[in-house]
């Protein structure tokens, strides 16, 4: 680090950067944006788009900002008339063969080419000839479609596949104006990270079938969240459409994109997470039900919680809680697990605490982990033992069973599940999704999905990441933390304590006081 101290001036702003920094990165440090299309911080610069040209004092020609390293005392201008003129020229060349079908392009609204045209272009096209026709719908992967007319040959996709996934399914074929991106002998792009190509593509050349033509980008509200589908805890953007007032079912999550967090996931997310989000929206339970003598009765939260509390309270009073069993899961947030532990383990003193989590899958050695649950680490740090459900232990001498989460149905076959659950008198299910468990239980409490609640998750490396709700709760559902707090209030245990915990942030602070890990 002693070699630091390259003092340069960019647009009259003095900056001090390390040796080997490119002009583009230095400008970023100075808070300036130099337009770039082919450059991506994760890859080796290629310098094929040539829109990042800047003027360096003393040099006769304009230089590439993305590929030129700074030298001490450099004076760079990124907005001089010459530079702007050059950018305009570059844009005009790029546009000459770009179809300008923005109205039907899914990238429109977040397209770099559009942005730069607005800033530097605004010309009448000089090319009066008809645009070149190329193939517009080429399936390069199961979910990816390549549009060669829109492609500006920045080769970000090629470089991603060769540098990050090292699978090299795409390449640039042929020469000159005939150059085109293609797969080798029609072997499709097949890896768990292909979805990143859509994010990477600066124009709308690569689109995915999940999002293609579904909506326009400017309708979407972008919120930051954490991917819950494995224990990596990748940072994501969730693009949510608040919906059209009169058309039901239009409020939904349209896509998931990678959010940069170099500590966790770099700039990428896996396809399992990216395309797994529709499953989070499917089969949602949104009604509070009490199966009273076989008939479904729709209840209010106040009523059903006081009913449950009535069942639990006598047992708590008489310190006879051995016949209560609970099944948790590690899809619950830190706050929820903490409350769960507080109420059921500490206050009620339950012995039968089990965990039902989704079955582990296989990791891929990069981002995707075998552990398909976002918060197992937190449960361990809290001192909860992740006992898997043993149906015999669960049903033996059990009067009241509270199940959190829908995963129990996936772990055991229905007949034995039904057999064992039938032995228990009162069964409560707090679940965000319908899974088949509904038919075995008496009380169904809809929980909010993970994208509908605020809280924090602890990833496998022990990083506690906060996130906030992306969309409003589905139907009558409530997040588990609020269900747990309300239940605790109804049970009248430690009332002062629980009534203080009104928000996830407050709960997290309380956790920090009690458990060193969360401090």
């Amino acid at each position: 680090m002693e070699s630091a101290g390259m003092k340069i001036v960019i647009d009259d702003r003095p900056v001090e950067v390390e040796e080997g920094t490119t002009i583009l990165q230095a400008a970023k440090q100075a808070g300036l944006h130099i337009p770039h299309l082919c450059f991506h911080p994760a890859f080796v610069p290629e310098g094929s788009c040539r829109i990042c040209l800047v003027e360096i004092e003393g040099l006769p020609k304009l230089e590439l900002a993305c590929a030129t390293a700074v030298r001490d005392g450099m004076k760079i201008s990124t907005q001089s008339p010459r530079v702007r003129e050059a950018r305009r020229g570059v844009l005009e060349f790029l546009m000459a063969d770009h179809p300008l079908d923005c109205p039907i392009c899914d990238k429109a609204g977040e397209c770099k080419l559009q942005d730069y045209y607005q800033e530097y272009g605004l010309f009448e096209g000089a090319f009066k000839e008809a645009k070149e026709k190329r193939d517009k719908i080429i399936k390069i992967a199961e979910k990816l479609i390549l549009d060669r007319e829109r492609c500006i040959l920045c080769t970000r996709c090629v470089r991603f596949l060769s540098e990050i996934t090292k699978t090299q399914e795409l390449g640039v074929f042929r020469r000159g104006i005939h150059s085109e991106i293609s797969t080798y002998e029609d072997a499709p792009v097949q890896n768990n990270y292909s979805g990143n190509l859509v994010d990477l593509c600066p124009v709308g050349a690569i689109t995915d079938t999940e999002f293609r033509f579904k909506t326009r980008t400017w309708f979407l509200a972008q919120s930051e969240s954490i991917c819950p589908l494995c224990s990596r805890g990748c940072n994501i953007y969730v693009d949510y459409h608040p919906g059209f007032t009169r058309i039901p079912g239009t409020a939904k999550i349209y896509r998931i994109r990678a959010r940069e967090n170099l500590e966790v996931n770099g700039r990428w997310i896996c396809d399992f997470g990216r395309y797994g989000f529709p499953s989070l929206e499917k089969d949602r339970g949104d009604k509070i039900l009490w199966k009273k003598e076989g008939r479904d009765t729709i209840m209010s939260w106040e009523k059903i919680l006081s009913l449950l509390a009535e069942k639990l309270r006598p047992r708590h009073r008489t310190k006879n809680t051995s016949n209560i069993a609970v099944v948790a899961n590690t899809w619950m947030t830190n706050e929820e697990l903490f409350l769960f532990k507080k109420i059921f383990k500490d206050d009620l003193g339950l012995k039968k605490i089990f965990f039902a989590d989704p079955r582990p899958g296989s990791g891929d050695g990069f981002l995707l982990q075998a552990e398909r649950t976002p918060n197992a680490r937190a449960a361990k740090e809290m001192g909860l033992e992740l006992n898997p459900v043993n149906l015999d232990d669960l049903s033996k001498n059990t009067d009241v069973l509270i199940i959190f989460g829908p995963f129990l149905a996936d772990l055991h076959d229905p007949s034995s599940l039904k057999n064992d659950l039938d032995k228990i008198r009162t069964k409560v299910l707090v679940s965000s999704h319908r899974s088949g468990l509904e038919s075995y239980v008496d009380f169904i409490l809809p929980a909010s999905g993970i994208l509908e609640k605020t809280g924090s998750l602890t990833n496998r490396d022990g990083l506690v990441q906060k996130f906030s709700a992306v969309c409003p709760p589905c139907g009558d559902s409530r997040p588990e933390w609020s269900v747990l707090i309300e239940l605790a209030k109804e049970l009248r245990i430690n009332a002062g304590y629980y009534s203080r915990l009104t928000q996830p942030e407050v709960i997290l602070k309380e956790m920090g006081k009690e458990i060193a890990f969360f401090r």
Partner: protein
Amino acid sequence: MIRSLGYFWELIKGSLITARHFVVNMWFHTLKLFGIKTKRRGAVTIQYPEQKKALASRHRSLQRLLKRQDLKPRCVSCMLCVTVCPSECIYVEAAEDPDPDIQKYPSTFIIDLSRCCFCGFCVEACPEDAIRMDTGKIDLAQSTRQDLIYDLDKLLK
């Protein structure tokens, strides 16, 4: 005292004006009742459903969607009209057309006329000249809300 007398005089003058209007107009109304045609009419009112004024050439009436030569809708469902619509009355669902020259076509196109404020922004926003408000239909009232929801078939007619 004199002033209040003047005031009184103005009161009488005022009522004489209204009385004159009444008498003159009533005279023409009576003539009309007996079928006598006069140059002047008793009222300036246009009796709307029977008498209609010609619409101005730029008048914005019921929307319509235009068709291509092969009778497919011209709309490419770019949703710019949805974007620009201030009353959020347009809803478009896109679908993939097998023809690579078209690519995107609207599988659903709904205009909720009960929300529409006839501002004409959708027409101005349309890059394909696929929507126009020149049908000249202005009597759009319906007895149910459902009838005011115009879908693709109705709009293409």
